[in-house]
Every structure is written in C-alpha cells, then in structure tokens.
C-alpha cells in the first residue's frame, strides 16, 4: 500500500488550509480564554443571580419606607435600629442558639450512623447511602408538616399516648416551642450531616487503624486518637452545611415554632409581607449574613487553634 493521498486529503494538501480568522487564531492559542468563554452563560447567570441581587439588597437596606414607596436618601437608620432595638438582637441570638443546638444534635446523632455505614457495611454500601439521603430529596415543606402532624395537640404522639392510656391530657409542650423547631430541624437536615462525615470516614486508611491496634490501643482509644481526629474535616463541613442554612429558616418556626420558637427568618419574611418595610427586611438579611460569616470565621479559627494544640 503506497502512500496515495485520498482525494479529500489531496484537496487539503494542495491548497493551504483555509486561513482561519484572527479570532479563531487567538482562541486557538489561549486556553484560559477558551475556558472562560465556554462558561460565560453559566457565569452570567450566577452573577445575575448572586452578585447583583446582593448589591441591590445592600442599597435597599440604606433606604427607608415612605408610605408605599421608598425614600431613597441613603441612611444607616435601619442598621441603627437593628443594633439598638432589643427585639432584633434577641431574635438573632435565639436563631443562632436554635441552629447551633440543632447542628450539634444532628452531627452527634448522625456520626454513629455514618460510622456504621463506613466501617460495618461491606456489601451494597450504595444502597445504604441512597436510603439515608432519600428523604432529603422530598419536599422540605412536607417534612416539616409531617412533624407538625406528629407533635400536634391532637397529633400522632399525643393521640397515640392517650389511646394507649399513658397520659390523660395531651402534652402541650410538644408543639410551638423552641424544642419543636430544634427536633424538626435536626430531622430534616440529617442527610447533610451524614454525607460529609461518611465521606471523610471512608477516606481513612484502614491500615492506620491496624497500626494503632498493633501499637497497643483498644477500640475506644483508637477511635479517640485516630478515627475521630481524621474525620474532623467531615464533621466541620457537616456543621457548616447545617448551621448556615438553618439560621435563616422560616418555614419550620412558622409552622411549629409559635412565639417561643420564632426565628429571624420569620421576621425578615414579615418585613416583606404584612409589615411592608422592605428596607428593614433588607437590612436584617444583611445583618444575618454578616453574623453568619462572623460565627463561621470564629468557628474556623477555633478549630484551627484546637488542631494546632493537639498536634
């Protein structure tokens, strides 16, 4: 077989390849440019959806309500109000408290589950993972509603206990309280805790555990000295993934928090609803974000300090 050029190739070989345009030439040379260009629609949407709204939010927080419109003279009155009026501070503190407790409860309760699947399940791990996360993919609203059904005055727990004769009158503290909110949050966000912890446990090199045993550690010791520290990145990730979104939650407190369990999310929502004070709502949203960032940062620094102390 001799190297006879194929007819098509012949045409290409004879004449110089069609001189591409300047633009194509530049694109051919710069990889970074090609990459960013390819992503541009995505980036555009995200910028439109994240950056611009936040900027507008910032701007709105500096306005004031004026009847049905806005007084657009920039002012920091809203921020001063948020700072000075005790109700906002109290609400914020309570929100962080509820989220914090829910986060700790979720992480602590989910850790053994993640541990079980990582270390004691050997076949069909995927099945377990799907089982654990499936409830998460259903409507959040429905899951909160389910707890309302359970904890209600005439709800499942009360009517069940009463019909079984354990109690005579329905328990009142179950619903419309901080505790109800915490329980519901913990249940609803469990999946977000399990996955990161599971992933970091799965990554632990099993031979490290064997080495620890070989060097004299019993199972509890080994857990405390090897497994737990190595799974910390997963625990921290889980904590963030639960804490941050729950601070702004308003469905759960609205459905079953009552006045005792109201959170800042409710308040923000009210500002955009019946109270109709959008600038205040914007301000509170920004204040919330600020405090979330502050708490998150403090938490990160704390864990870093702890890590340095331990190693």
């Amino acid at each position, binding site marked *: 077989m001799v190297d006879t050029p194929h007819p098509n190739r012949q045409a290409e070989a004879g004449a110089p390849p069609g001189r591409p345009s300047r633009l194509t030439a530049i694109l051919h040379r710069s*990889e*970074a440019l090609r*990459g960013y260009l*390819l*992503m541009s*629609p*995505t980036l555009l*949407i*995200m910028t439109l*959806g*994240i950056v611009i*709204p*936040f900027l*507008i*939010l910032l701007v*709105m927080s500096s306005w004031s309500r004026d009847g049905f419109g806005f007084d657009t003279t920039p002012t920091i009155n809203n921020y001063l109000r948020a700072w000075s009026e005790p109700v906002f501070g109290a609400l914020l503190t309570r929100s962080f408290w509820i989220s914090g407790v829910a986060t700790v409860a979720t992480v602590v*309760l989910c850790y*053994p*589950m993640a541990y*079980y*699947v990582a270390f*004691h399940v*050997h076949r069909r791990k*995927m099945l377990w993972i799907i*089982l654990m996360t*499936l409830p998460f*993919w*259903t*409507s*959040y*609203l*429905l*899951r909160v*509603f*389910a*707890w309302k*059904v*359970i904890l209600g005055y*005439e*709800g*499942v727990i009360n009517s*069940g206990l009463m*019909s079984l004769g354990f109690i005579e009158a329905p328990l009142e503290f179950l619903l419309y309280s901080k505790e109800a909110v915490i329980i519901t949050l913990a*249940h609803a966000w*469990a999946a977000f805790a399990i996955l990161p912890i599971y992933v970091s446990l799965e990554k632990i090199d*099993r*031979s490290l555990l*064997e080495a620890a045993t070989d060097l004299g550690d019993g199972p509890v010791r080994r857990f405390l000295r090897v497994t737990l520290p190595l799974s910390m990145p997963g625990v921290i990730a889980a904590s963030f*993934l639960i804490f941050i*979104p729950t*601070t*702004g*939650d308003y469905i759960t407190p609205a459905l079953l928090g009552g006045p005792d369990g109201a959170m800042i*999310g409710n308040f923000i*929502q009210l500002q*955009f609803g019946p109270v109709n004070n*959008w600038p205040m709502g*914007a301000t509170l*949203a920004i204040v*919330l974000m600020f405090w979330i960032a502050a708490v998150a940062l403090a938490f990160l620094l704390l864990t870093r300090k702890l890590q340095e102390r331990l190693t």
Partner: protein
Amino acid sequence: MSQGTYIKRHNRALQVYAVAFLIVLYVPVLFIPLFSFNDSVYVRFPLEGFTLQWYVELWSREPVWNALWNSVRVGAVVSVIATILGVVAARAITRYRMPGKTALVTFIMMPLVIPGIIFGVALLVLLSRMGVPLSLYTVGLGHLIFCLPFAVATLLPRFEGFDPSMEEASMDLGENGWWTFWRVTFPMVFPGVVASLLLTFTISFDEFIMAFFLTGTDPTLPMYIWGQLRFPQQFPSVLALSALILIASFVLVFVAQWIGRVGLDQNRETP
C-alpha cells in the same frame, strides 16, 4: 479490603442504632401516606378506617391540577437549562487551565451554603426594582440559580472521570469541537446528564422557600399546599397530595442514582 478480622468485629450496639436511626428517619415521613388513607378529617390516633375518598376528592379539584402543571412546567424548564449550563461549566472547569478556577467553583457553589431566604429576598428586591412582575418566570429564575450548583456538582465527577484524550483523539481524527461534543463527550457523560436533569427537576419541583417570595398569581404546588394548610378541613386532601408527591420524588431520585451507577459500569474497561 484488608481490614483484618479484629476491626471487622460486629458491633451489636451500632447495628441496633443504625436500624433505629433509619426508622426514626423514615417514620415521620411515612405518617403522611398513612393518614391519607384514614377515614377521618382529624390527623390523630386511633385510625378510623381505610378510605380512598381523599384521593378521589383530589382528582376533581382543579386548582390542584393547575398548581401541579405549573410546578411541572417550571421544573422541566429549570432542569433543562440548569443541566445545559452545568455541562458547559463542568467541561470548562475540567478541561481548561484557567487562572482563578478555585474561586470560580466556590462562587458557583455558593447558593448551597447561603440561607434560601436571603436569595429569595434579594431576588425579590432586584426584580421589583427592575419593574419585573412576579410570575412563574421569576420563580424559574430563582430555582435556576439554586439548582445550578447541584447540576454542576453532579456533572463535575462525570467529566473528571472521563479521559481527556478521548476528545483529543476525536479532534485528531478530524472532528471539530461541535462534532466532538456530540459524538464522544455527550454519549460518555450521558448518565450524568440524566441524573442532573432528574435531580434538578426534583429540587425545583419541591422548592418552597424561594417560590414563596417570587410567586405571582400562578402558584407552584408547594405554594398551593402552603395555602391549604390554613384550612383544617383540607388536611387529609393535602396529605393525599403530599403522599403522591413523596412517592414520585422517591422514584425519581432512585432512578437518577441507579442510572448514575449503570453509567459508571459501562465505562469500565478490561485491563
């Protein structure tokens, strides 16, 4: 895995815990279908009897079907657009050397860690200042921004596990970018695309927080349910509706995961 029998020792306590955990996880959710068959307006024990009347009644209620159709429409459009944008972004991130890539990825993933209420509120403010009336389109926009990180997170591993020399081989053999994508890239990431479509659809379909702020006169299904919660008489119907949605979501997610696994097996080569 060389765990050694010592570490593999069965731990009864943990097993019991795991099972109890799953029970606690699922039971609250399973109460909904349970009471949807209960012959009583009140959601409480003891159960009064089996009935399908709530489901039957649901059938004739037109607002329910309207809301359902709205949610389906929004979900479909959002899932398609989010997946397309996700494919494009995942490919760019895994194939090109770009400065500032980590910052870029973090930026895209941000909606996952910001409370939904803040997004809802921020978008509401933006849209109202721009004079855009609230409608299913605005809900769709909010959902799109929320679903994009999920789409990217689903597609990124697909593209990363995909040998770049496949695309290079295709180009080397004469196909330009467009043809290479359709002949090589797309077939190979297809399971990820399907998973992304199903996932983003489910997320949009169930999403309530942002829909609350961005809905106009046409409610999505979660918004409709929220409205109905104020009327105790409607409780059982709401339960019936919720039960149906639950089952549908379960099935969709299961299928998405299963397809994801099948795709992975197909790409495995004999050594």
